[in-house]
């Protein structure tokens, strides 16, 4: 029996070697075929995966006296350092000279990589919107353990990390988005469904509502809700594509937003999200749209009165439209120019593995992309995680976003809320929308 298995395994391995010659296609197609767990799958030209965290030591190949640089978010550095110690213990056969952890924000990592890949980190965390830039510049190496990673993580996160059939990064979180946070003593739970109700409640209590309209990350909600959604990139790899939209309808939605901002001017304020936690603690704020990474601070400020929900709806010509947000994932990538490519891949696999994701969910409150961790209490029993999950169903995925996307979107938000804007002037909004799209697509 053993012999037969051995022969079969050897056959599979040779087959996969040939498959490797034909290019690295088929990673997205293979996700549904196998329902088994991740043990010792011989995919990708002989990649040996031991379990959801570790791979076989033979994968290191010739590499020894390993030194690596890791970039992660400032908040996570302590935890990542601990995890790396565990990683070193898991491979006693190998000598690790130095694994250095440096705090570089996920929003920044892509740009830093592009500026000088040769001195950048070997393993780095980044937000999904930078993937196309990194792939275009070929500074990110494709994932070595595609099959195992595909099976372990939520389908959407794998899909968003795949470009032209190749998975380029290890999914790490499934929570990079924003949602409604509110003070339960100001806005009662049954009123969180409608933006109009929330604003009215805040105004009655003399408190503010914060929505950072001067930041493209948040203000693109206005465009998305209006039906102007992003739809990947054009063939040139840099120009943003949009879905088909009804311009009249879109203009009406923008007008509705602008009208609310002006009707509730003084209540509806555009401020940096950092002001939300401080607003809650000074008691000047009723509700706000805040990112998942600020959750801990918001909760500290409000204690028992803290409430979280998906984004509300807005009334446009009598129909309630759900606000559509930008929702992204965080990934771990491997520098293509790494001096220890195999070690970097193995470390990335470990850091994006089940145990590490669980630890981050428990200690930092980061929503996991791993399917098993998603079923754990730390996720299912958390209001916040559930609010994030509900919002993720009404969102555009933050991937394949052009570098020219953010500024024009920020400008759109600024213009909607500007004092001199007249919400009833449909022509103005039509022109604004057209100019915004033209700027994002760099036409002209």
């Amino acid at each position, binding site marked *: 029996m053993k012999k037969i298995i051995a022969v079969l395994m050897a056959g599979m391995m040779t087959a996969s070697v040939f498959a*490797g010659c034909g290019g*690295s296609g088929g990673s997205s197609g293979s996700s549904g075929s196998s329902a088994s767990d991740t043990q010792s799958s011989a995919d*990708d*030209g*002989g*990649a*040996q995966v031991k379990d959801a965290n570790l791979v076989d030591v033979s*994968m290191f*190949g010739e590499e020894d006296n390993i030194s690596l640089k890791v970039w992660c978010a400032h908040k996570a550095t302590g935890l990542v350092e601990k995890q790396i110690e565990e990683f070193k213990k898991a491979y006693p056969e190998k000598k690790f000279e130095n694994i250095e952890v440096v705090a570089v924000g996920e929003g920044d990592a892509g*740009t830093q990589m*592009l500026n000088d*890949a040769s001195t950048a980190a070997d393993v780095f965390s980044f937000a999904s919107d930078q993937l196309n*830039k990194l792939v*275009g*510049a*070929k*500074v990110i*190496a*494709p994932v*070595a353990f595609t099959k195992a990673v595909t099976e372990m993580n939520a389908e959407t996160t794998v899909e968003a990390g795949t470009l032209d059939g190749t998975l380029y990064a290890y999914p790490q979180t499934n929570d990079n988005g924003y949602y409604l946070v509110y003070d339960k003593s100001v806005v009662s739970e049954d009123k969180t469904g409608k933006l109009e109700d929330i604003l009215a409640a805040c105004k009655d209590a003399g408190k503010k509502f914060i929505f950072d309209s*001067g930041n493209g990350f948040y203000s693109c909600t206005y465009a998305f809700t209006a039906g102007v959604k992003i739809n990947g990139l054009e063939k*040139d*790899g*840099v120009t943003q594509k949009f879905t088909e939209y009804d311009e009249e309808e879109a203009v009406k939605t923008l007008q509705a937003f602008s009208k609310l901002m002006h009707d509730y001017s*003084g209540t509806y*304020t555009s*401020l940096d999200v950092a*002001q939300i936690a401080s607003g809650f603690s000074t008691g*000047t704020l009723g509700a706000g749209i805040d990112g998942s990474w600020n959750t801990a601070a918001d909760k500290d400020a409000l204690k028992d009165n803290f409430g979280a929900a998906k984004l509300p709806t807005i009334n446009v010509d009598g129909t309630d439209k759900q606000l559509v947000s930008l929702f992204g994932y965080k990934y771990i990538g491997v520098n*293509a*120019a790494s001096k220890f*490519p*195999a070690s970097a*891949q193995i470390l990335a696999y470990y850091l994006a593995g089940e145990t590490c994701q669980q630890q981050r969910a428990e200690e930092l409150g980061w929503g996991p992309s791993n399917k098993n961790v998603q079923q754990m209490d730390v996720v299912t029993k958390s209001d916040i995680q559930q609010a994030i999950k509900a919002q993720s169903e009404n969102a555009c995925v933050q991937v394949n976003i052009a*570098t*020219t996307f*953010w*500024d*024009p979107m*920020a*400008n*759109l938000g*600024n*213009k909607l809320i*500007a*004092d*001199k804007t007249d919400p009833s002037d449909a022509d103005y909004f039509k022109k*604004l929308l057209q*100019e*915004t799209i033209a*700027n994002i697509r*760099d036409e*002209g």
Partner: protein
Amino acid sequence: MTYVEYKMLNPFQRFAYNFKRVLVSVPRAVGNFFKAIGKGIAKFFIGIVKGFKNYGVTFAKGDWATKLSYLIFGAGDLHKGKYYKGILFFLTEVLYILYITMFGWGYISKFGTLGTVETSMQKVNGIPKPVLGDNSMLILLYSVLTIVVTVVVFAIYIANIKDAYKHQVMKANGEKPTSLRTDIKEFLDGKYHITLLSFPVLMICVFNILPLLFMILIAFTNYDKQHMPPGTLFTWVGMENFKDLFNLVEGAKKGKTFVELTGWTLLWAVLATFTNYILGMIVALMINKKGIKFKGLWRTLFVIAIAVPQFVSLLLMNQMLQVNGAINVLLTQISHMFGGTETIEIQFLNSTTLMARATVVIVNIWVGIPYTILSMSGILMNIPEDLYESARIDGASPVKTFTAITLPYMIFVTTPQLITTFVGNINNFNVIYLLTGGGPSTEQYYQAGRTDILVTWLFKLSMDTQDYGLAAAIGILVFIVCATISLIVYNNSKSMKDEEAFS
């Protein structure tokens, strides 16, 4: 107009007269500037022609060793007994040939295309590894290096020929070549400036000239987000980036942005320079006035603002000027004291263009005048007291003493400083970027806001959208504007024309 006639005019007429004179002199100054450039270029080409002539003449007159120097460096010197120099020349040639064959040729041969082979990925033992192709950026960088090295070696080559011929002539006259010891002595004596300056000049070439040439060349390539080495290649596009910047067709955003931002940059530089200069001077005069008590205290109070790093004050200012920032809170509380009930929420940085620009200029006054006060106080204390004394005896009014003594003296001393401040303000990145970040935003511009000046736009283009080619083109144009303005103003200033005045 004679001096007497001038003295008979009233102050307004004098101002008009002087103003007219300045205006008239500007075209001439610009003309002179370009004439000088033209002369320089002509001289350069004449020099080249002369050089070629000498090259031929020397070859015709040279003996066999001198002629051999045309191929083998140092042959002439070795033949005439100037051994150490001959060996140095020869070594240069050997090293240069080694450099070109081992390193330089690989890059310079691709200089025309900036590379043709793209990087691809390959899997080894299941681990993806890149197969590196050409790297346009390295090709450009090392090609520039190779060109600079070649120019230097060419200069040595010409020196070698001249030296060979010199020694041939010396030998014909029965003179002996100087020994190594005498030459070294000469470098510590007559040619000491060469000994001292060679190292700094070398460093300037490596750390300033080389990167500068590299950056200038990038302006003529399509190095942008679509063409990022090492993944993809970029190549020459000629004047395309400059065309984009001067494309003023309706709907072409880059051209519109460039032209309007240039206007605002110049306006900003003028406002920032002169508000600081004039207000700083007024405060310095007030502090320096006789009868003011606690002069040291006042000076210290103003200078304390310098003790806090500029970027810290600017970031704090940014926070204070937000809608819920300290300034709005203060205004609200003041209005409440007088019975107001409304919360004041002025959008200093994010509403209208005029408001944001005015805010930037005012904050710049606040961070800038302490420096002017410092230097002005120094200058004021340096004005010889006897000048004022004689003016008083002659019965001059305080205003007269100011316009006839203080102001001319200060302008004389500070013109070069004014020029540097002006150029510094054209490139004043900190104040704009940290205070407003370029906002208020607009859909009319390409990746820029209403208070962005050219440098901050350049920064955004290179850091946010990776439009390196375009950014380099803007850099070149900013340099041209700064250089022209400073050269013209400085060459026409009194401090330049009449160095000895007031001494």
